[in-house]
């Protein structure tokens, strides 16, 4: 993509006004989103839609159909298969040996976007011969990206870059072994889709829905203020089985003392933790 494509930044007052409208009318609370990136997304929408700030407010109030589109643009849905290959390496060497001792392995991939991480984990568990007893839940607040995720079809351009990541993971073969190639796209093998389920879930307002052996929520916290991060960490803590694993993005360092008491560091660099205490 060329250029940052942003216009003059939105002021703090305008931002609060908009957050208020979205909260009152659409029930989505963006007040604890990290401000700089949220503003950047707003400027981007205004530019793409050729809207002034006033028009954006107007359309959010008066055009009910616009909100879904707004939600998709405001949240960052950029994701990759096997993003940070070293993370997947660490999973295989430090987490999988323990996961494999469970009768059932339930994994929650929170903020899964178009499903790339869910399928990366599905491939990894399959290679470890664990797919029969595994189930991966992918959740996101966007229905649009979840539909993409359910299809499991990605453009060849994307697959090419994902395949490069795959090579660095040390997994056998190549990424395309797990896909059926079409003309300009590739579809993930259906057996890898079998034990996955995608559904809408809002980390800010919804509660837990199961008990998991592992929760992966990578590069979602970067969009949240610290207080909100702690609230969601609490939700994750309650949703994990004893000694369950939590994986965050590798730059999402948690600086809270209370957190350190509840989770043991398994891999500092890749931000992999294990629930301790009860």
């Amino acid at each position, binding site marked *: *993509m060329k*250029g*940052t494509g942003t216009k003059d930044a939105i002021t703090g007052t305008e931002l609060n006004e908009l957050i208020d409208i979205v909260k009152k009318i659409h029930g989505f609370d963006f007040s604890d989103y*990290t401000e*700089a990136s949220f503003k*950047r997304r707003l400027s981007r929408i205004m530019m793409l839609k050729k809207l002034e700030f006033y028009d954006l407010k107007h359309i959010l109030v008066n055009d009910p159909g616009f909100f879904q589109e707004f939600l998709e643009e405001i949240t960052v849905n950029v994701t990759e298969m096997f993003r*940070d290959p070293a993370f997947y390496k660490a999973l295989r060497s430090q987490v999988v040996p323990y996961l494999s001792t469970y009768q059932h392995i339930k994994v929650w991939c929170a903020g899964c976007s178009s499903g790339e991480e869910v399928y990366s984990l599905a491939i990894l568990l399959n290679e470890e011969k664990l797919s029969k007893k595994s189930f991966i839940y992918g959740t996101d607040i966007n229905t649009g990206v979840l539909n993409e995720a359910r299809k499991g079809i990605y453009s060849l351009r994307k697959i090419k870059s994902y395949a490069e990541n795959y090579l660095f993971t040390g997994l056998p073969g190549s990424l395309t072994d797990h896909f059926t190639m079409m003309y300009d796209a590739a579809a993930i093998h259906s057996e890898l889709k079998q034990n996955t389920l995608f559904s809408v879930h809002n980390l800010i307002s919804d509660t837990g829905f199961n008990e998991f052996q592992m929760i992966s929520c990578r590069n979602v916290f970067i*969009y949240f203020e610290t207080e909100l991060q702690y609230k969601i960490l609490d939700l994750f803590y309650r949703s994990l089985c004893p000694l369950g694993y939590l994986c965050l993005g590798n730059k999402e*360092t948690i600086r809270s003392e209370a957190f350190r008491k509840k989770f043991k560091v398994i891999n500092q660099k890749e931000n992999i933790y294990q629930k301790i205490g009860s």
Partner: protein
Amino acid sequence: MALDDEIKKRWAQSRILLLGGSAGAFKLLFRLVKILPVNLNKTVIIVIHRKKNFFSEIEKLFAENSRMLLQEISDKEPIKGNTIYIAPANYHTLVENEGFFSLDVSDAVWYSKPSIDVTFESVAEVYKGQVTAVLFSGANQDGAEGLLKLRQKGALTIAQYPGDAEMAEMPQAAIDMHAAEYILRTTEIFELLEL
């Protein structure tokens, strides 16, 4: 050519030193990191284009040779003085009003993540005239727009003289956009920042 008093004064008053570069900038930034004094009393933020999955160990190499404290930025990292921060690969780095960094994984800008434009624009919004920014060698025009935003907000903006740059396109783009208040030879940039 001697540097004028005005530029020296503005550099001395800056709280933030922003350094951006791509192809051909690595060696220069490495040399700069080596000479910046431990009592600089400023925050240094470096955005250099880098590939994901390519563990060049830039931070390690820089940290070992830096007199100032040097670290790679992680999410919600507080922005402290007398510290050199390096933008991590595969994220955009932004700054928040409350004095900390935040990261973003949205689309690459000018095929780059980290993008120099994104960080420069964000720093311009928060720190305005308290910034000295230098754009070095690079093979695309990322950074030019960001440098312009900084200049509009009153920051001291400098482009490396394209004739001195290994890759002229990046500083040239900034100059064409009138984003650079000063165009300095490499030696002049070093002379200024060593003050």
